[in-house]
């Protein structure tokens, strides 16, 4: 599913070069549920942005479903994000002026799915995350846990190959966090590939396989 070969990303800060990612080598197979843990500033978000095609690597090779992403144009990257990736962010990243249903609908609009099909798909995924009753609420009218469910529904609606979650429970209390993690478990049981990035060991413990990142170095965690 994912293959990273010597992937590096640098940031120039004045005279100093920050290695946000330093020769990362790893792969994730289809259907795996992987947790990536590391302290703040270790390069977790940088890694996720590259995997999610929001950003491209400065060095190395990144293959998504066997496709080399390195030379993709901006439009091709947008296409990959739309069809293959489902993002779940720490602070939800919902559009405040849109209702829950409209937020979930957004990726389908960019995918050019017909309106009547969109309605059905949106209502299906909102059902799946248990928010059928809240579809016309705006994010401000929802609790943090509910907002994150809307975000999960939005990721789910395009049936992506890969779910990418960056600190999905970072803004939630432990009870709601547990609910969100149960949703991830369900997704995994349905055969989805999930990558959860976190600095929280308990969250990582839920996963099938654990990796560690430190100062831009990615390594398999010893159990």
């Amino acid at each position, binding site marked *: 599913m994912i293959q990273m070969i010597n992937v590096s990303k640098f940031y120039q800060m004045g005279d100093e070069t920050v290695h946000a990612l330093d020769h990362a080598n790893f792969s994730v197979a289809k259907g795996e549920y992987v947790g990536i843990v590391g302290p703040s500033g270790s390069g977790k978000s940088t890694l996720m*942005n590259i995997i999610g095609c929001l*950003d491209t690597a400065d060095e190395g090779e990144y293959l998504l479903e066997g496709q080399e992403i390195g030379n993709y144009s901006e439009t091709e990257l947008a*296409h990959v994000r739309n*069809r293959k990736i489902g993002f779940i962010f720490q602070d939800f990243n*919902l559009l405040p*002026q849109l209702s829950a249903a409209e937020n979930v609908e957004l*990726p389908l*609009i*960019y995918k050019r799915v017909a309106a009547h099909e969109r309605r059905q798909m949106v209502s299906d995924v909102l059902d799946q995350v248990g928010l059928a009753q809240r579809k016309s609420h705006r994010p401000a009218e929802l609790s943090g846990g509910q907002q994150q469910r809307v975000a999960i529904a939005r990721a789910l609606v395009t049936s992506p190959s890969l779910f990418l979650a960056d600190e999905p429970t970072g803004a939630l209390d432990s009870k709601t966090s547990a609910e969100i993690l149960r949703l991830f478990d369900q997704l995994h049981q349905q055969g989805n590939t999930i990558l959860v990035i976190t600095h929280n060991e308990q969250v990582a413990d839920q996963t099938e396989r654990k990796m560690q990142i430190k100062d831009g170095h990615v390594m398999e965690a010893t159990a």
Partner: protein
Amino acid sequence: MILQSLKMAWKAIATNKMRAFLTMLGVIIGVTSLVVLVSLVNSATKSVTDTISSLGNDMLTVSISDNKDKPLAWQEVMALQDQYGFAEVAPLATASVTAKKGSTSDTIRLTGTTPGYAAIQGLTLAYGSFFNVADVNNNTYVAVVNSYTAQTLFAGGSAVGQTVSLGGVAVQIVGVLEDEEGVLGFNSQSLEAYIPYTTLMRISDSVREVGSFVVVPPAGQTADQAQATLTALLLNRLDGDAEAFSIVNATDIANAMESVIGTMTFMLGGIAAISLLVGGIGIMNIMLVSVTERTREIGIRKAVGASYASIMAQFLIEAILISLIGCAIGILLSWGIVFVIGALAPAYNFGLSIGVIGIAVAFSALVGIVFGSYPASKAAHKNPVEALRSA
């Protein structure tokens, strides 16, 4: 996709109505001034040209500047009518003399002509009748005066049958013209009288032979055809010298008038169009602010798969929509303004000009495209990672 972008743009505008209105203000003012100015000028032009054509659009005025010592006698000019089948021919000469009645005296403008002139100019009489052919043949001392003259010299009393001294000669008034409405709605405030051509030759020393005359083409002929006939005969009469005479066609005057007003419309329209451009700069300004404020939104849209083109389309359509809504408000406002002005000055038949509405819509759309492009491209070029990180 366009429909989706329209929906998104509409939502964005509806979310911040006050800002959208302020953004549109420049376009509203620009469109209103464009539509109102051009509509008013067009309506005024139409009433002016209508007046000109009601004066006899096919009338020709011939002026002879050099008669080559072979002066045209008035009889010769009159004979042209039968010779060439013209509908009307009338010699024309003017002189200013003193009119005197009792203790009142003032300068009066005398027009010496023949009865045909009344028909050519569409002169209508309030009292009495116009002088006739016999009066011209016998140089009778008769006159038709305008209503201002009748009021001034006879102080409201009946003028017909009365005698007045014109240049020291006693002349009997046989007719009084109707109160005339001038081209711009003003009544003539000067003393004017029409007398037989031959009578004017007696009263004024300067009037001898015919220096100018007016012609109405034969039925079924255009002014241009009659002009060709007259040119040929005058060239023949005046030793082939085209500089010795001139023929003014009333259609030429109407055309010249229209071209002057056309230029005026163009200039006023141009000034209004510049204010529309300024409105466009207002749109660009606010759109740039809006793009900065909505950086995170752009990041989110890109994360869920919006391409460069879809972000570009979204913001561009928003700019065009703002401009077109402003345009629609401007047109409504213009309609109200023109309606009110029309009610205040009914004589001009003021109305919205459809053509300029089309131009305003097209120009507003263009302004939206031109001034929306830069902010839209700025939005589309945002890096998704940085956009997502912004507050």
